[in-house]
């Protein structure tokens, strides 16, 4: 079974602060995705990283895929209340199965 552990599980910060969420596994993934889920809604895809060492930026969000394609990080610069939500990483592994991470709940306050 391929597992994806996210850390931290919960993060409460003030507007303007920076943060990093980690997604780690002992398994190799062919690609890795990050989703954000807001209360009462389904997860929404933010980005997919495919190549080891790849870095993608989406406005204030920076995503990195580990060189060995076993881990990933999400860095948010100058967090805003609109960034509040549940962040989920998901890895595409063997048999094209998608495994979701344990989740990181982010709360950004004014």
């Amino acid at each position, binding site marked *: 079974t391929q597992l994806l552990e996210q850390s931290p599980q919960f993060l409460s910060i003030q507007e303007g602060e920076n943060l990093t969420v980690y997604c780690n596994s002992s398994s190799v993934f*062919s690609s890795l*995705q990050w989703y954000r889920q807001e209360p009462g809604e389904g*997860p929404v*895809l933010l980005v997919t990283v495919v190549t080891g060492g790849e870095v993608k930026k989406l406005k204030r969000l920076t995503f990195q895929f580990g060189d060995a394609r076993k881990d990933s990080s999400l860095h948010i610069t100058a967090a805003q209340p609109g960034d509040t939500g549940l962040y989920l990483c*998901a890895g595409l592994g063997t048999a094209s199965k998608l495994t*979701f991470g344990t989740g990181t709940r982010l709360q950004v306050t004014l």
Partner: protein
Amino acid sequence: SAVISQKPSRDICQRGTSLTIQCQVDSQVTMMFWYRQQPGQSLTLIATANQGSEATYESGFVIDKFPISRPNLTFSTLTVSNMSPEDSSIYLCSVGVSGGTGELFFGEGSRLTVL
């Protein structure tokens, strides 16, 4: 992208009853999945809904408890049978993006509370 509509968005049910959740997609899709999200938790795949054949269930989920229908490429239903409070969860329908990337679009979810 795909627009996915789920019904009901939420429901409160009595123990021992069954509830069917509907998922409608605005375009034909090959891959359709049902996930469960327990309160404060991540997503767990229940099954892959296959058009014209029986669904493929993940370990820990069985057809008698979670029967799934997929009559065509735009519609699927998930039934939660003989419910107990442990079935209180959000149930999410999702569809896969073509191209083998594994990317998913999700419906807004159906929040089920069993008393």
